[in-house]
């Protein structure tokens, strides 16, 4: 559809692109990503022909862009611009009708029945039928963006360019907008090239993505999961994020690592015994509070295990669905020996994890603090053996925490963070990379 070959472009002395090549395929949704100022909008303007490349070539259906007339270009591609200031109070209907201009062939540019049909269709698709008589100068940013989209739809072109067209939209209209783009793409085969700052949403609807570096070079082009990687995001945007797949759509999703914790357990060495999802919230909270965590034993594939490995927490790990082996239990014990505090968050007890309680007892004997998070007799599937050991732990001084939410408060009370560590540098990201024990 659009072939970009070795283009170079500079504003005065400021080079933007050098030898950039890629292509836009017919019928795809391609998202352009990159840090502010990397030239995404400039690239779109180059593709549209508003700016001329200084070297290289841009071909539309193997025709050089310079050779295509303005009107023919408007029939090929419609543009949804960033929100702009409107000077004159045109009504919404008038602005949307402007989208039909390239289709008007008569010298007086009078509209025809087909024009009116396309306009009504566009108004309905973008949910602005109720706004038709309103002056555009009185609309909100989001309403204006929908008007621009309607104008582009009325243009009825085979390619749609969107320059941050959803930046002012509420979530309902943003999703509606995406749904509309998908529908246009699937039903009418519209090729869509968009600039978006909503990486998650862009990844969800795009077939391919083009990631630009701040120097206008290609950092990656391909399917969303190939482009949206932790490595790429760190390299281009200089932030640490976690990327997981959206459980619903399977598309990559970015999780920013913001420390929202109000607690500080810096340098407090804690070992967590958990499993089956009982420990993931505690893991996350303690991680954000900057505690020096270790965890285990855990089977590979356990949901607690995936959280721990996502957070790079040192862990004693067993193969899936196997009882804990001697080696893993030994490793766990080394971790416990290294820790000051042991937290037992396991909910269900069976023959498989009974050994953990023994380890806890050993820890207690070595005068380590042991916390039991909400132990329930009904969750004992070892015919009473586990419960018996839990009771013994209690008698020997293990602290029972009734609710998981109260754990951090209790830890804070028992191990008040020293003056030194409270004033320790406030780290934005508690991202510690410890050597895996």
């Amino acid at each position: 559809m659009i072939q970009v070959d070795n283009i170079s472009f500079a504003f005065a002395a400021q080079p933007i692109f050098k030898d950039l090549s890629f292509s836009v395929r017919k019928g795809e949704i391609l998202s352009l990503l990159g840090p502010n100022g990397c030239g995404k909008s400039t690239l779109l303007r180059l593709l549209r022909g508003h700016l001329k490349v200084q070297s290289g070539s841009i071909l539309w259906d193997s025709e050089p862009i310079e050779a295509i007339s303005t009107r023919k270009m408007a029939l090929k591609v419609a543009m949804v611009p960033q929100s702009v200031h409107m000077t004159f109070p045109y009504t919404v209907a008038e602005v949307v009708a402007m989208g039909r201009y390239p289709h008007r062939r008569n010298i007086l540019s009078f509209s025809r029945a087909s024009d009116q049909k396309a306009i009504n269709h566009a108004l309905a698709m973008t949910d602005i039928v109720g706004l038709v008589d309103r002056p555009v100068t009185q609309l909100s940013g989001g309403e204006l963006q929908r008007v621009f989209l309607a104008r582009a739809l009325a243009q009825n072109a085979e390619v749609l360019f969107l320059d941050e067209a959803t930046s002012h939209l509420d979530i309902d209209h943003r999703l509606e907008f995406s749904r509309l783009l998908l529908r246009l793409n699937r039903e009418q085969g519209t090729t869509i090239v968009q600039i978006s700052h909503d990486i998650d949403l862009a990844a969800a609807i795009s077939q391919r993505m083009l990631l630009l570096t701040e120097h206008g070079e290609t950092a990656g082009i391909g399917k969303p999961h190939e482009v949206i990687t932790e490595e790429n995001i760190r390299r281009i945007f200089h932030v640490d994020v976690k990327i997981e797949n959206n459980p619903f759509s399977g598309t990559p999703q970015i999780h920013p690592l913001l420390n929202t914790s109000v607690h500080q357990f810096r340098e407090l060495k804690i070992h967590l015994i958990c499993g089956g999802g009982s420990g993931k919230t505690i893991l996350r909270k303690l991680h954000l509070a900057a505690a020096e965590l270790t965890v285990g034993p855990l089977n590979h594939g356990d949901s607690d295990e995936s959280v721990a490995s996502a957070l790079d927490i040192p862990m004693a790990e067993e193969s899936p669905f196997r009882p804990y082996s001697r080696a893993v239990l030994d490793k766990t014990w080394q971790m416990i020996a290294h820790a000051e505090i042991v937290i037992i968050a396991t909910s269900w007890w069976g023959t498989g994890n009974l050994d953990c309680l023994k380890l806890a007892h050993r820890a207690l004997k070595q005068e380590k603090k042991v916390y039991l998070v909400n132990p329930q007799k009904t969750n004992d599937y070892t015919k009473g053996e586990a419960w018996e050991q839990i009771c013994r732990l209690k008698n020997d001084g293990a602290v029972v925490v009734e609710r998981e939410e109260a754990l951090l408060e209790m830890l804070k009370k028992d191990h008040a963070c020293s003056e030194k560590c409270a004033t320790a540098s406030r780290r934005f990201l508690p991202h510690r990379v410890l050597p895996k024990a």
Partner: protein
Amino acid sequence: MNNFLHAKRRWFQLLMLVVLPGLAFFFSLSAGSLDIPPEKLLSILQQGPGDNIEQTIIWQIRLPRSFLAALVGCALSLSGVTFQAVLRNPLADPYLLGVSGGAALGAVIALTCGLQSTLMLPLAAFIGALSALLLVYLVARAHTCTTHTLILSGVMVGSLAAALLLFLLWRAPSEASRQAVFWLAGNLSLADPGWVSWGWLWVAGGFVLLWMLAPHLDLLTQGDETAEDLGLDVGRSRLIFFAVAGALTSCAVALTGLVGFVGLVIPHICRLIWGPGHRRLIPLSALFGGCFLMLADALARSIYAPAEIPVGVVTALLGAPFFLYLLRRKGAGV
């Protein structure tokens, strides 16, 4: 109910479109140093031209003059509408591109050279205006004619012309310079009636062209890139509009000197009432511009009759307060 009100308002507006020009025309014919009452006016108009003194006044003097006023009002407000749309600035006016300076310079050169004939003066002013326009274009073309360079070079050419003008006035004999000042303030009595029909042809041509290209003006108000996105050859159509608007202004200035405020205020009022769509705005501005200047001229003739105040003074006195009121009510984005 709402529909009914809407329809009623429409009818009222349509009625206004017929009644207002008629009234303005009538008033313009009957006002002046010799008051001619309406019923007498009707009979004179029915009788046709004749030797009677009142017939002579109406047919030989006032009728051409009303036509001239209408013509200049039309031309200026058409050019105002165009400039405001192309420059996307509701405060633009027809004299923006140095046309006024050029025309004034041409006229004053003619005056100081002793060419006082009513035939030569408009021609000199017209040539001056067009040369200024050409100079502006040639300067701006070096930078692909963006609106900014056009405005800047327009202002510069205007200042250059103004400096030369002052120099000439300083050197000129006092009679010529008095006449020049009168011309600079706008004066409808200078034009030779023979020029009026030519002027009308010129303005009619400009009007037809602008009305045909009205959707292009709509697109240009949306910004250059958007206009191009929608398939408009922006550079070319902007040039056409500047040329047409410049030519209309030149024509008006050549015939009557610098009549201010019509080109600024009339498009505003029309936009306020009928919205910014140029298919409607262009004919309405032309109509109301013509009416406004006919009325202003009638006032200029009758307030101090038999003396006559420059019409530019009346338009400014009527226009400026109204404009201030609009600014206060709606802000600059009217």
